[in-house]
C-alpha cells in the first residue's frame, strides 16, 4: 500500500509533470508582463495626447496683436492720427510735433513709450514691425529710428523695415499670426503695414 502511494507521487512529480507546470507558469508570467506593458502603453499614449491646448492663450495672443495694431494706428497724436504721422514720416516729414520733433522722431519716442508701458510691462514676448514696401532708400531714417540697441532699421531690396524686438527660436519660439494694420501711402500705391505678433512660448 505504502509502495503504491510512493509510485503515485513519483509519477505526479516526474520530470514531464514539472516541465508542464513550469511552462504553464511561464505563460502566466508572460500574460502578466503583457498586461502591465499594455497598461504602460495606454498610460503613455494618454499622457501624450492630453497636452494643454492653451485655447485661451492662443485667443488672447491673437486678440492682443490684432487690437494693438488697430488701436496703434488710430491713436491721436500731434493733432492727427498715428497713421497720418507714419505716412508723413515715410514721405515729406512736414509735421512738427511738441518739442520741435519731426514725425519720425515723435513716432519713435511714442512707440518706445507705448511698448514699455504695455507689452514690456506685461512681460510679453512679441515682434513689433513697421514695414514700408517699395520705398526709396533714405539714410536719414536710420539715425532717427535707431535710438537704442533694441530698435533696428534695415534695408532689404529697397524697402525699409522698423523692428522693435522680435521672436527668435532660441528664446521665444514661433510667432503667432500677427495683427496687421495697413496704411495706404497717398496715391503712390505703396503701403505701410504695422505688424504686432505675440511669440508662442
Amino acid at each position, binding site marked *: 500500500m505504502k509502495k503504491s502511494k510512493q509510485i503515485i507521487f513519483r509519477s505526479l512529480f516526474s520530470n514531464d509533470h514539472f516541465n508542464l507546470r513550469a511552462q504553464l507558469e511561464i505563460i502566466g508570467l508572460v500574460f502578466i508582463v503583457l498586461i502591465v506593458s499594455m497598461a504602460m502603453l495606454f498610460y503613455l499614449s494618454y499622457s501624450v495626447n492630453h497636452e494643454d491646448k492653451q485655447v*485661451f492663450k492662443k485667443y488672447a495672443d491673437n486678440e492682443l496683436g490684432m487690437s494693438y495694431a488697430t488701436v496703434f494706428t488710430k491713436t491721436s497724436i500731434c493733432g492727427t492720427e498715428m497713421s497720418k504721422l507714419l505716412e508723413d514720416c515715410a514721405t515729406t516729414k512736414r509735421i512738427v510735433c511738441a518739442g520741435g520733433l519731426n514725425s519720425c522722431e515723435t513716432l519713435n519716442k511714442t512707440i518706445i513709450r507705448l511698448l514699455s508701458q504695455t507689452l514690456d510691462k*506685461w512681460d510679453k514676448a512679441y515682434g513689433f514691425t513697421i514695414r514700408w514696401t517699395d520705398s526709396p532708400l533714405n539714410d536719414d531714417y536710420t539715425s532717427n529710428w535707431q535710438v537704442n540697441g533694441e530698435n533696428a532699421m534695415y534695408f532689404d531690396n529697397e524697402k525699409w523695415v522698423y523692428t522693435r524686438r522680435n521672436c527668435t527660436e532660441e528664446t521665444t519660439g514661433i510667432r503667432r499670426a500677427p495683427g496687421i494694420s495697413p496704411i495706404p501711402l497717398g496715391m503712390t500705391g505703396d503701403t505701410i503695414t504695422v505688424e504686432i505678433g505675440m511669440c508662442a512660448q
Partner: protein
Amino acid sequence: MSFKLYSRNGRLLKHNSGQIQLNETLFIIIFIILIIVFGLVFFSQAENDSIRTKQKEYRQLDSIVTTQYVTSLTELKCSVYGTEDQSCFEEIKLTAFENLTKNDWDLVGEYYVNKLGTAKITIEEIYPQSRNWTIYNYTGTFEKDGVAYDGKQTQIPVVIWNPLTGKRAFGVLYLTVYNKVI
C-alpha cells in the same frame, strides 16, 4: 489519513501538495487582486485628469466668451450715427458706467453678474494721459463659500474716444475672470 510527499529518491518531503497548491493559489489571487486594484486606481486617476482637462478647457472657453462680450459692450462702444467702431470705447460712457457701478451696484449687478460672473474690468488710458476706470468688480461670493479662486488677467488694447474733442487715446482693457479652483 494523510498523504505524505516523497521525493524521487524516496525521501519524505516536508510539506504536502495541498499546502503548496494552497499557497500558490493564495499568492496568485493576491497578485491578481493587486493588479486589479492598481488598474482601478490608475483608471480613476486617468478619468480624474481627463475631467480636470475638460474643465480647464471649458473655463478657457468661458473666458473667451466673457472677453468677447466685454469688448462688444454696446453700452460703452463708440458710435457715430449708430455705426459702432471696433476696439473703441467712449470716454463719457466709461465715466457714466463707472459712476453707475459705484453708486447703484444693485442695478448693475442684477443684470451684469449673470453675464460676467466673478470678474474685474478696468480700462486704463496709457497715452497721452494716464488714468483709469473700473467699470465692473464683482467678487461677492468669495468669502461666503470659502472656495479658492484664481484670476487670469487678459489685456486688450482699446481706443478711448472723446466725442467732444474728437481725440482718440491709446487705452488697455484689463479683464480678470475669476474661476473656482477645484
